[in-house]
C-alpha cells in the first residue's frame, strides 16, 4: 500500500474510533447502547429460560430434509448472488458508500479512487465485524440453551459476512462492467451482457450442476451452502466444512481484487451525478409520477399538506414506483396462491408433532418481517434531511407533523407487509396461523409509531438529521422486538379470556399514543 492509502486508512479508522469514543462519552448515546445491548441480552436470556430449543432445531432439521432437497438450498443461495449481480448492474456499485463529504474532501485530493475505496471498505469490514461480535455476545444465552457451539456458530457468522461481502463485490463488478460498456457503446444491445452475467452467476447453482460435491468449488454461493449443510448436518456429505471454507475464502480476495482493480474515476462520477441535475430514475418512473403539483391540493389542513408533500416527494424517487409495483404483483401472486392453491407449489408441511412448537417461531417471523417493513417509518423523518428544521419552523403544530409522518408510514409499511403476510399465510401453516396473522395489524401500528418516534429523535442527538446515530438505528429494532414480545406475552396470557378483545386494543392505543407523544416532544426540543 502506498503512503496515501495508509493515511486514508488511518483517517477512516480514526473516525471510527472517534465515533466510538464520542458514543461512550455521551450519556444519552451510552444509555441507548446500554438499553440496546442489555435489553437484547435480557430478551435472549428470557427466551432461553422459557424453553430448550435443541429439540426444535433437531425437528426443524428433520422437517427440512423431508420437504426440500440439497439442490434447493444451493439454488436459493444462488439467487442471492444473482440478485446481487442484477442489483449491481442497475445500481451505483461501490459508490453507494460515498458521502457528500467524500465528494468535497476526498475526491479533489491527490489520491486514486481505488485508494479511497480500499480505505472505506476496510472501515466497513471493521464495523461489520464489530456489530457481528456484539450480536453474537447478546444472543449467547440463546445459543447455550440450544446446545449450539459458539465457535462453529461464530464461524458460520463470519462465513455469512464473507459471503455477503462477495455478493457486494459481484454487484460492484457488474456495475463496473456496465459503466465501461456505457462509455464505449450507445446501442441498447449492450445490456444483453446482463443476461450473460446472470447466467454465469446462476448456472453453477442449478441442480444438474450441484449434484456433485465438487460443485462447491465453482461459485461462492455453492461454497456457502456447502458450509451451512456441513455445519448444521442437514444434507451433509460428511466431508467437513473445510473445503467450503477454503473455497469461500479464496473467492473473497479474488472478487475483492477484481473490484479494486476496476475502481476508477467512475467510482466518483457515479456518486457525483447523484448530486447533479440529472437523476438516474427510469422513464417509467417519470411517467408514473407525472407532473403533480401537490401545493395546489384542495386540502388546507397542515396534516394533509405534510402527508401529500411526503407522498409526492417519495414518488419522485426512482425506487418508490417499484414499491407499488411490488405491492401489486406481490398481492396478485399471494391471492393466486391462497385462492387457487396450486399443486406445483405446495406449502411447507410442518410435522404434526411440531405444530405447537412452531408457533413461537411463526410469531418471531411475524415480528421480524413487520420490523423489516417498518424501516420506512424510521426514514419518514430521516428523509427530510436538513429540511426538518425548515419543517419545524413552519407554522404547523408539532403534533400535525408527527401525525402526518405516522399516517404515511402506516400506508408505506402496510403496503410492504401485506404481500409478505399473504405468502406467509400460504407457505407457513402452523396451528392457528390464520388468527395469528391478524397480529400483523397491531404490530404495524406499533412499529410504525416506534419508527416515527426514533426518527424524530435523530436531530435531538446529532447535527446530521440524515444520518441516524448507530445506537438510535439499532435501538429501533431493539424497542420493536421488546414491544412485539410484550404483545405476544399479552396474547399468551389472555388467550383463553374474552377480555383480550379489550386489553389488546387498549395496549396498542396506549403504546402508539405514548410513542407519538414522545415524537412530538422530540420535535419541540431540537437543538
Amino acid at each position, binding site marked *: 500500500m502506498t*503512503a*496515501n492509502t495508509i*493515511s*486514508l486508512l*488511518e*483517517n477512516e479508522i*480514526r*473516525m*471510527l474510533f*472517534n*465515533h466510538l469514543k*464520542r458514543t461512550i462519552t455521551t450519556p444519552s448515546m451510552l444509555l441507548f447502547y446500554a438499553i440496546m445491548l442489555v435489553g437484547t441480552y435480557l430478551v435472549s436470556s428470557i427466551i432461553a429460560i422459557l424453553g430448550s430449543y435443541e429439540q426444535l432445531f433437531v425437528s426443524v432439521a428433520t422437517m427440512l430434509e423431508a420437504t426440500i432437497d440439497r439442490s434447493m438450498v444451493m439454488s436459493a443461495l444462488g439467487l442471492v448472488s444473482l440478485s446481487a449481480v442484477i442489483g449491481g448492474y442497475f445500481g451505483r456499485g461501490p459508490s453507494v458508500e460515498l458521502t*457528500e*463529504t467524500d*465528494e*468535497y*474532501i476526498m*475526491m*479533489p*485530493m*491527490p*489520491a*486514486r479512487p481505488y485508494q479511497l475505496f480500499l480505505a472505506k471498505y476496510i472501515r466497513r469490514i471493521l464495523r461489520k465485524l464489530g456489530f457481528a461480535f456484539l450480536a453474537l455476545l447478546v444472543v449467547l444465552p440463546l445459543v447455550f440453551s440450544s446446545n449450539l457451539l459458539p465457535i462453529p456458530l461464530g464461524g458460520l457468522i463470519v462465513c455469512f459476512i464473507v459471503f455477503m461481502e462477495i455478493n457486494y463485490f459481484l454487484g460492484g463488478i457488474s456495475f463496473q462492467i456496465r459503466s465501461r460498456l456505457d462509455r464505449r457503446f450507445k446501442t441498447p444491445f449492450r445490456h444483453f451482457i446482463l443476461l450473460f452475467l446472470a447466467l454465469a452467476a446462476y448456472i453453477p447453482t442449478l441442480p444438474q450442476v450441484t449434484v456433485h460435491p465438487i460443485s462447491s468449488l465453482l461459485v461462492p454461493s455453492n461454497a456457502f451452502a456447502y458450509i451451512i449443510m456441513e455445519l448444521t448436518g442437514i444434507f451433509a456429505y460428511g466431508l467437513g466444512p473445510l473445503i467450503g471454507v477454503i473455497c469461500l475464502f479464496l473467492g473473497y480476495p479474488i472478487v475483492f481484487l477484481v473490484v479494486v482493480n476496476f475502481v476508477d*474515476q467512475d467510482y*466518483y*462520477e457515479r456518486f*457525483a*451525478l447523484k448530486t*447533479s*441535475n*440529472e437523476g438516474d430514475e427510469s422513464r417509467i418512473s417519470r411517467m408514473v409520477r407525472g407532473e403533480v403539483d401537490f401545493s395546489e391540493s384542495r386540502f388546507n389542513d397542515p396534516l394533509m399538506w405534510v402527508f401529500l408533500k411526503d407522498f409526492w416527494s417519495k414518488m419522485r424517487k426512482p425506487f418508490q414506483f417499484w414499491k407499488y409495483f411490488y405491492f401489486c404483483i406481490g398481492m396478485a401472486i399471494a391471492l393466486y396462491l391462497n385462492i387457487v392453491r396450486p399443486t406445483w407449489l405446495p406449502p411447507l408441511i410442518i410435522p404434526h408433532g411440531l405444530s405447537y412448537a412452531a408457533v413461537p417461531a411463526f410469531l418471531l417471523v411475524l415480528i421480524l418481517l413487520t420490523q423489516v417493513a417498518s424501516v420506512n417509518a424510521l426514514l419518514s423523518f430521516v428523509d427530510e434531511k436538513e429540511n426538518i428544521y425548515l419543517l419545524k419552523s413552519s407554522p404547523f403544530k408539532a403534533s400535525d407533523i408527527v401525525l402526518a409522518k405516522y399516517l404515511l408510514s402506516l400506508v408505506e409499511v402496510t403496503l410492504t407487509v401485506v404481500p409478505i403476510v399473504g405468502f406467509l399465510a400460504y407457505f407457513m401453516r402452523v396451528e392457528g396461523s390464520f388468527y395469528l396473522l391478524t397480529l400483523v395489524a397491531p404490530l404495524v401500528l406499533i412499529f410504525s409509531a416506534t419508527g416515527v418516534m426514533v426518527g424524530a429523535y435523530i436531530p435531538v442527538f*446529532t*447535527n*446530521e438529521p440524515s444520518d441516524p446515530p448507530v445506537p438510535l438505528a439499532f435501538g429501533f429494532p431493539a424497542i420493536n422486538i421488546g414491544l412485539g414480545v410484550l404483545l405476544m406475552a399479552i396474547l399468551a396470557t389472555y388467550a383463553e379470556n374474552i377480555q383480550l378483545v379489550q386489553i389488546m386494543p387498549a395496549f396498542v392505543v396506549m403504546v402508539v399514543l405514548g410513542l407519538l407523544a414522545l415524537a412530538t416532544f422530540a420535535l419541540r426540543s431540537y437543538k
Partner: protein
Amino acid sequence: MNSVKSIVERMDSDELIRLARQLNVSLTERKMKRGLLVETIQGELEEYYREGIPWKKTRLSDLAIQISGLTKKFGKTVAVRGLNLAVRPGQIVGLVGPNGAGKTTTLRILAGIIRPTEGTVQVNGFDMNVHPLKAKQRLGYIPERPTCYPNLKVREYLTFIAKIYRVPPIDATLRMKEYVDLFQLNGLLNAYIGTLSKGNLQRTLLVGIFVRPPPYILALDEPIYGLDPRGAWNLKLLLKKLRDEGSAILVSTHILEVAEGICDRFIIMNEGDVVGKGTLEELLEQTPNAHTIEEIFLELTGGIPDA
C-alpha cells in the same frame, strides 16, 4: 525566516514541544524555560531552512488553470457549453453568474470530481484526465456547501490533509499555527468538526488548504459563505496577498461586491454559456448601459429590470 521565528514565538507549550520533537530537539530537562526552548527551536529551524524556505522557490506554470472547450452534459441538459478560461499566476478571476449558470459544475470538473463531456482541464500544466494526481496535488478546492467529517477533530483533519498532500511535518506544524491564528481557530483545534458552526467549518476547510505550501492554485466556490465580517475581511486580504505572491485563484461567487473587491478579471456565465469576460473596464465597454458590476451582471444575464 523572520516570519517563521515569529510563528514559533506565538506557539503555546504543547505546540512548542510537538515542534521540538519533530526537530529532534533533546528534551531531557524536567523543566525548561519557555524562552530557552523557543530560542533552541528557532536555532534548529534556522539550520532546517539553511538553504532557504523551499516553497519560496516554487513557481507555477504560466497557465496555472487552463480550461479549453469545456462542455458538460447531464443527459440532455447542457450544464456548461464550450467554456474557455485561463488563470495565470498573480491573478484572481471571478466566475459569476445566476443560479444554475454552470459555475459549480465548472469547479467540480476543475477539482477532478467529475469528467467533462468535451474539452480539457489543465492544472499547473497537468491534464486532469491524464495526470489527475499531479493536477490535484497543487489545487485547493473549497466547495459551495462547506462540509467535513464530523468525527474528526480540527487538528486531526489538518494533520491528515498535510499527510495526504505530503507536507513535511515541520512545515505543516508551522503553517498550521500561522493560519489557525489568522482564522482564529485556536480554541477549536481539539473540537470535533461535527460540533462546529458553519463559519468555523469554512475556516477549518480554508486552513486545510493553507497548510499546504504556496504558491496555490485555488478553486473557491463561495469562499465567504458563513464567515463573519472579520473572517471575510481576513480572507479577502489573504487572497490579495497570495495573488501578489504568485498564486492563481478562481473564485465563484454570487456576491458581486466580493467579486469586484478582489477579482482582476471576470467570467460571467448564464445557463452554461459565457456571456461576458474581461476586466471591469472591458466589461463596461461591452455594456454601454451599465455603470457598475451589478448592472453589467444584470445586463448580461437577462437585462436590467425596470424600476
